[in-house]
């Protein structure tokens, strides 16, 4: 089931949904104006925030506004007990099996890479699954509105707990579509209903 998006502020287009419980807000979107040199309008705006209030299947941002240059993400998350796998994401689709995703990830002790893989887009190493610990990420996507370019993401994450003790980076290539990014879906690599309450994702737009 999908929760209806509760839309706030001046950004009626963005929708955030989850298959279980959570709250969301879309506090601001100040339009498509691109500041010129010397324009002191603020370029960094919150597009939407999702906070899980109970176990959550996936978190999806759809109808992402096309009025920014870059996207920025801040995430805290935890797996349900026993689920200390990676956070992963899809672009513009929730389907799996497409064999054109590549990534590099490293904790600078070891490094792995995937080449034209059908595996999910791993956002660094494993997250914790022990309450009340959390794992933190931040990430970027530049040029997400470009219509003829495969999209690049960069993530860094930190997790310090007995079941997940990592500081890692990943760089992800989404070679499935060159279309602008209008939808992003985050989920737990262990499968449905593995994101614990307290998981929070905020998506920012940079003008």
């Amino acid at each position, binding site marked *: 089931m999908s929760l209806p998006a509760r839309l706030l502020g001046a950004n009626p287009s963005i929708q955030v949904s989850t298959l279980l419980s959570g709250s969301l807000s879309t506090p601001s979107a100040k339009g498509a104006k*691109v*500041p010129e*040199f*010397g*324009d*002191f*309008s*603020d*370029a*960094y705006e919150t597009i939407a925030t999702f906070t899980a209030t109970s176990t959550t299947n996936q978190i999806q941002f759809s109808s992402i506004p096309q009025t920014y*240059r*870059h996207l920025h993400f801040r995430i805290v998350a935890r797996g349900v007990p026993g689920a200390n796998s990676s956070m992963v994401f899809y672009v513009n689709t929730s389907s799996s099996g497409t064999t*054109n995703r*590549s*990534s*590099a*990830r*490293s904790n*600078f*002790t*070891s*490094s*792995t*890479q995937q*080449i*034209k893989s059908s595996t999910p887009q791993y956002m660094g190493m494993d997250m914790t699954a022990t309450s009340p610990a959390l794992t933190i990420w931040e990430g*970027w*996507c*530049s*040029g997400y509105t*470009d219509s*003829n*370019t*495969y999209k*690049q*993401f*960069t993530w*860094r994450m930190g997790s310090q707990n007995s079941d997940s003790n990592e500081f890692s*980076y*990943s*760089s*992800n*290539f989404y*070679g499935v579509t*060159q279309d602008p990014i209008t939808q992003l879906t985050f989920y737990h690599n262990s499968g449905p209903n593995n994101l614990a309450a307290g998981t929070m994702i905020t998506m920012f737009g*940079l*003008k």
Partner: protein
Amino acid sequence: MPATYTLISTAEVTTAGTTNALSFSSIPSTYDSLELIGTIEHTSSGAGKITINNDSASNYFSRIDDAVGGSIYRYANTGSAGGPFTYPSATNTQSSTAFIKLLFTNYKDTNNHKVALFYYGQPTNATTKCLELAGIRYASTSAISTITIADNNVSTYLGTKTKLSLYGIVNS
């Protein structure tokens, strides 16, 4: 409340085969920090570099962590002409774009060397992926007024998917 994160300017390659560098010049001294974010498309393998204030002398020091092709490399540049910023195993396709981010926290300081954090991700669909992280020291007490991102080879052009944004951050 004043704006804390402001777009200063953008730079992009609009015509293929015309330039191997993009620069931001006359950077205002009205911010506390600078952040450069963007996409780079390189058209051949090789190295890129960051130059500050058009200074080509050996004033760039860095500590670099690279994850390339499933291996880890850690090394230091001591007094090199240009910062870090490696382009490994690039291919001349649109899939060879890379993500770049630079954070300068004391760019207008005239008493100390300038420092920056550097992030670079080039996953692509080519054989070799790259992650690169670095701490950079520019050994000059001059304020930063120009930042240039370039291919190390002057005859290697940047592609038209190269788009950079420079932001100013105010500590308020």
